[in-house]
């Protein structure tokens, strides 16, 4: 039976992630764009816009020896109809 060993490993892993601190360093940069005619501003005035959002996070690990990470997250919503 290796269950106890795995249980310790899982517990340790959960604990590790639970203590990670995310320091949001950048306000969300949210922009809309004309998804149907991307290079012709204003041509798709009555059509749904695409959206892109940029977030920035600084991951601070509890382990002083671990490598810290800067994370940039990009979220996008594109009207399906606008895609080729």
């Amino acid at each position: 039976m290796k269950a106890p060993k795995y249980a310790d490993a899982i517990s340790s892993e959960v604990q590790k992630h639970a203590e990670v601190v995310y320091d949001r360093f950048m306000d969300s940069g949210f922009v809309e764009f004309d998804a149907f005619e991307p290079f012709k501003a204003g041509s798709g005035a009555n059509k749904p816009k695409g959206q892109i959002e940029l977030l920035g996070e600084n991951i601070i690990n509890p382990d002083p020896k671990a490598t810290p990470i800067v994370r940039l997250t990009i979220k996008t919503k594109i009207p399906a109809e606008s895609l080729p």
Partner: protein
Amino acid sequence: MYRHTLRLKNQEVWDQDDLVLGCEVDAKNPSRVDVKQFDKKYDLQAVDKTYKPQGGELIKAEDKIAAADADKKVFKAKQAKINGVDFVETQCVIAIKFDERVKKFADKIFDKFYVAELGLQYFDKKATKAPYSVCAAKQQTEAFLPVPVFKDEFLYKPSAKFFEHGYNMRESELNEVSYRDISWEWKVTKETNKPDQLRVTFFSTFDKKSIATKQKVEQFIEFHPSFDRSKTPKREVIGCEYDDATKTFTPFYKKDVASDFKSADLATVTGYKT
């Protein structure tokens, strides 16, 4: 294949080092997320680029700092209906691990302000060119890349986000102080059209007779700038001096202030009649 594009244009022209990144998300296979780092001259708006970068379009491997996030399972394009309209939603994460190799670039890349250009490209696997490409933001989104810090540093940092702290001061307990018959108030507000700028307004009430010699009054706020993530951040001061003799206000700004005004004894302030 969706490629989110991000150009971070370094705003410090004397040390220009732009980052041009592409983070790709597959419509079906979440394990196919990838981050490419292009040469700074690479045109993210060009629609004639092939999905596979050509020679010289990517930076050298030893100069690459961005990579896909270790947690790939959540990054998959999906369909979503919003207000009756079908959208494709995608999300990607660009991770910069602050390891020993990346530290070599730190002075050029981190603690810097950038203008971010966000974009999107869609590649059909069968197409040789990018049939769909947008550059959605130009000169609209500002980004700041901080030097990553460890948790112990994070806990004692005095003021990592000046703008946020400054803004909150208006509603916190620190918007008014008094000493004997002098009271000070200040208000910190954000310019709605300039999110990286603050307006600091000072108010004071005092009896001029209580000021013995100099008919000048200074009001100021100390802060630690957000970009200084060192263990010994230097203070900066924004203030305004009022000269009662000439009835003029003179704003001032001081950098690298070593003294700690807050710990000073107000009773030792020169010119005050006791």
